[in-house]
């Protein structure tokens, strides 16, 4: 009996020791859509970096603006050179917290992520409803939200104003793995 209890104690301790404190997504996906009667613009970035600290629920996201992939080369050129100015502002970042996050909970939970998003030299507080799935130690975060172009100091020439929606729809999906740094 003593041996059994000792073995059980060791197994429990070992499994706790294996729980990572941080998880990382190196190939997170962020895509955006602009729908207008003139044209639809869609782009996706498949190399978005994100790290979650499972102990306090803090989350950080970083992406290169020039890794968005567009259907047409001209859209990409306008995006990088005229609107986002990716040479001057190469990255967009988000730092925040998953409110009420229970990292131990297996299955699905829906939480609000609140934090500061920085892009094109503008910082803005965001609250994003996010689905969190945990299965076999892996976490997947996904969701959709809308934001307005005017918030980010992006100048669109009047001639092209009809081609770009005022409100942009953004989708995200991150698959996290244990992270030892």
């Amino acid at each position, binding site marked *: 009996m003593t041996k059994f209890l000792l073995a059980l104690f060791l197994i429990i301790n070992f499994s706790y020791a294996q729980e990572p404190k941080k998880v*990382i997504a*190196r*190939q997170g*996906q962020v895509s955006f859509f602009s729908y207008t009667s003139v044209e639809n613009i869609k782009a*996706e970035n*498949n*190399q978005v*970096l994100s790290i979650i600290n499972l102990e306090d629920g803090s989350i950080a996201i*970083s*992406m*290169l603006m*020039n*890794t968005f*992939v567009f259907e*047409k*080369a*001209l859209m990409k050129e306008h995006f990088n050179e005229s609107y986002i100015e990716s040479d001057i502002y*190469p*990255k967009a970042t988000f730092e925040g917290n998953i409110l009420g996050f229970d990292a131990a909970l297996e299955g699905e939970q829906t939480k609000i992520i609140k934090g500061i998003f920085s892009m094109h030299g503008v910082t803005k507080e965001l609250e994003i409803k996010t689905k969190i799935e945990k299965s076999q130690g892996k976490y997947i975060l996904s969701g959709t939200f809308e934001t307005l172009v005017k918030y980010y100091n992006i100048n669109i020439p009047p001639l092209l104003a009809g081609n770009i929606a005022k409100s942009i729809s953004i989708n995200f*999906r991150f*698959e996290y793995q244990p992270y030892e*740094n």
Partner: protein
Amino acid sequence: MKKPTKLNKRSIVLVQLILVTSIIVILGLNIFNCNPNKMVLDTKPVKYFKIEKLIDELSFEENAFSDFKENVVAVEGFVEDINSLNNRQTVILRDKENRNTSVICDMQKDQTVLIDSLELGDQVTIKGIFKGALKDIILLNCIIFNQTNQ
């Protein structure tokens, strides 16, 4: 010397018009249909890296790569991971010491057969457009680089 006839004049104008139109069309196609996949296939790398050197340079200076950003580079490293996350084919390269930084190579669709022949730990050289670095270095529109495709 013979004076140009009305017909000759017309021919000259027509030829000039065709030439100008052709130039405009060619330039237009180059500007609007600049295909990054083709660019990687056709362009000689501006820089050839051993992965250790690339990671070392990144750790010293974040903007070390500004000279060849958006240019085609070739990186030689060891296959750390092959995945199809986000419905894309990605090969991740690491160095011998397996340090924390890797090179994420977003592969072109026609590379499937070559990717299938790779195994974890294989030494390989990948050519792609250098985009920059977050925690890892990112290359897009990548192809497996060998003597026959360059």
